[in-house]
């Protein structure tokens, strides 16, 4: 190989691969005809990723990268082979080569040795040599030791993105909306007045004389023949909510409800979340963000249960579902949690004793609380929803006999052909695919972008995903406020006509709970 001048030589560490999967290589490609970047992969990083994969800990992204590198190395050419070390190079894209440095097994990697390897090889020249890591320990260990160290900026999304669901509007648009009243303002005009991009299903809040007024970006959705996909949107407008909506009564087509299983929206944001997100059939991907105590789980839980109930024929007609088909909007609910986190160390749930329910129960507290707050708690315990109506499953069962005839709200039954709720965790999702399922993903900020991508990929026809979370509450040591599955997914999907985002900004917990947020571990 002749001397190859690279634009940049990049050394991403295994944590970057775990966060993003093989997609990372596309980001690192130099998009310039006359130039390319080089990614260096030392064998120690491969070993680190392999250990992660074998221990099934936080491994999905790393696994994806290993598969990619396996194919890449097949096309490589050997640059140098000595007793101590072999280096191979492979072109993966027009703007990116990968350099494999294979050293003897168990040989520790030091950043100094890596840098000297790169520097000593005259064939590898670049303007910049950068170690890319999101791992705080690596930042501390390698800072000032030669290579420039950067965060993986291409993975960062501002946590502020959660505020995109309901934005504040200006007087110019509000005046225009008032003048045009029920006709609404064309999206182009509204975009011009606010001088920013607006998305379908986005809300705009205005300070009116006595209270906030809300407007919504609406559109007519044109679907394909089977109705499974939105192929275009037309007549995009911004419309003020009608005065009746401030009474916060939920309407599914012509089925009006003061509450959903005993839960009433407590403020307009909760109403918007229920009416236009959780209960909206056209919204297939809904992001529900908010701090602890804002009511995310409670709203999502009751809305989900309501949508799997088998309502009486008359009500089904009112709700706009096929009156002859005894079913809800979805067949069942899947509750999905990130793999467990204990004391900052992430490990697979399979390592714990007990059956799946015993393993998962400690992490279902928020749903158990939601069940207790709902009117369902007076009818049956939460566990009944996990049981199959006829057979035994991992959680026991079958479902209690008396629930077969039990009418909820006097007009609906639990689904009689399947469990109402299936619980699973992220480690179990790979290899699955869901149909006609409502998937509730809690603590989405604790998923890596790659993990959440793989979950969304699993959804089939008739599914809806509700992603709940708060970027300020990241517990996964590999994620951060800027790099996590939730904000990444929002960025990816916010402009899709089938998605919507609401952030609940009111907290309904106690004053001491609020104060705990600023609790500092100092004695004085």
């Amino acid at each position: 190989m002749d001397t190859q001048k690279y634009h940049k030589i990049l050394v991403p560490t295994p944590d970057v691969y775990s966060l993003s999967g093989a997609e990372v290589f596309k980001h690192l490609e130099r998009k310039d005809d006359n130039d390319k970047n080089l990614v260096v992969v030392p064998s120690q990083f491969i070993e680190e990723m392999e250990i992660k994969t074998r221990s099934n800990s936080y491994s999905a992204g790393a696994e994806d990268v290993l598969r990619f590198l396996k194919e890449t190395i097949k096309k490589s050419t050997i640059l140098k082979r000595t007793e101590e070390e072999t280096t191979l190079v492979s072109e993966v894209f027009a703007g990116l080569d990968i350099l494999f440095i294979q050293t003897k097994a168990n040989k520790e990697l030091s950043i100094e040795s890596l840098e000297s390897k790169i520097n000593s090889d005259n064939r590898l020249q670049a303007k910049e040599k950068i170690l890319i890591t999101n791992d705080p320990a690596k930042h501390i260990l390698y800072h000032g030791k030669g290579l420039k160290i950067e965060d993986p900026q291409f993975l960062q999304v501002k946590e502020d993105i959660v505020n995109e669901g309901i934005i504040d509007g200006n007087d110019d648009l509000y005046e225009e909306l008032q003048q045009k009243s029920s006709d609404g303002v064309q999206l182009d005009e509204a975009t011009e007045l606010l001088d920013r991009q607006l998305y379908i299903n986005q809300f705009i809040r205005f300070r009116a004389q006595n209270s906030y007024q809300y407007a919504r970006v609406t559109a007519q959705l044109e679907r394909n023949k089977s109705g499974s996909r939105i192929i275009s949107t037309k007549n995009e407008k911004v419309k003020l909510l009608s005065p009746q909506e401030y009474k916060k009564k939920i309407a599914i087509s012509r089925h009006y409800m003061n509450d959903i299983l005993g839960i009433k929206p407590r403020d307009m944001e909760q109403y918007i979340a229920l009416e236009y997100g959780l209960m909206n059939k056209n919204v297939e991907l809904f992001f529900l963000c908010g701090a602890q105590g804002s009511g995310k789980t409670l709203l999502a839980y009751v809305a989900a249960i309501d949508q799997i109930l088998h309502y009486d024929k008359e009500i089904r007609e009112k709700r706009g579902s096929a009156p002859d088909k005894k079913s809800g909007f979805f067949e069942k609910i899947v509750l999905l949690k990130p793999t467990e986190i204990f004391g900052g160390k992430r490990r697979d749930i399979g390592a714990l004793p007990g059956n799946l329910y015993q393993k998962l129960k400690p992490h279902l507290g928020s749903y158990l609380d939601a069940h207790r707050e709902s009117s369902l708690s007076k009818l049956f315990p939460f566990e009944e929803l996990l049981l199959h109506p006829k057979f035994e499953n991992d959680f026991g069962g079958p479902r209690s006999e008396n629930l077969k005839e039990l009418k909820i709200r006097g007009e609906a039954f639990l689904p009689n052909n399947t469990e109402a709720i299936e619980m699973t965790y992220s480690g179990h999702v790979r290899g699955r695919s869901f149909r006609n399922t409502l998937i509730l993903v809690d603590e989405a900020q604790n998923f890596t972008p790659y993990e959440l991508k793989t979950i969304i990929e699993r959804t089939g026809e008739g599914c809806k995903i509700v992603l709940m979370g708060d970027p300020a509450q990241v517990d996964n040591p590999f994620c951060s406020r800027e790099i996590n599955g939730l904000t990444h997914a929002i960025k990816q999907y916010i402009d899709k006509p089938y998605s919507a985002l609401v952030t609940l900004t009111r907290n309904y917990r106690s004053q001491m709970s609020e104060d705990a947020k600023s609790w500092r571990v100092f004695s004085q």
Partner: protein
Amino acid sequence: MARKKTEKERQLYTLIEALDAQTDDKGELGSLISYVILTSLIDFETNTGSEEERRFEEIKAIYTGLEKAIERSREEDSYSVLCELTTQKAKELKQILDKERKIENETLLKLIINSLTHQKNYEDTLKRKGLRLRDNVYDTGILYGRRNILRKNYEAIRDIFQS
């Protein structure tokens, strides 16, 4: 015997915390923080002292603005205070943003206005910057030392509104 009270120095942390307690809606809190800062600075005038002294005076004016907002929120509610602030100073703010009224010195107000100029919907930007300032102040925690507090609070506002 009563314990001697130790009074925390006047600073953004305690003032924003007090305002936060009066406001249930966090979006509203963000707007309120930003509008208090803006309106306090619109009214602020000084040409004396060193640059640092002037900066300190600007921050003190913001403290006073926040104290008034807390008091007014106690008497009425935070929504009324926000509406009052925005309507009272709307004309002046528009004049400044439209460059009809010039800001002479390199002040904090000028810096904030520069970041908002050409934005038709600065309301949303102000809400978000206010929330970011709250998060920043909470993350940093209570500060100590009079001059240190003033300096750090100034830098926090400057950095957030400049970005």
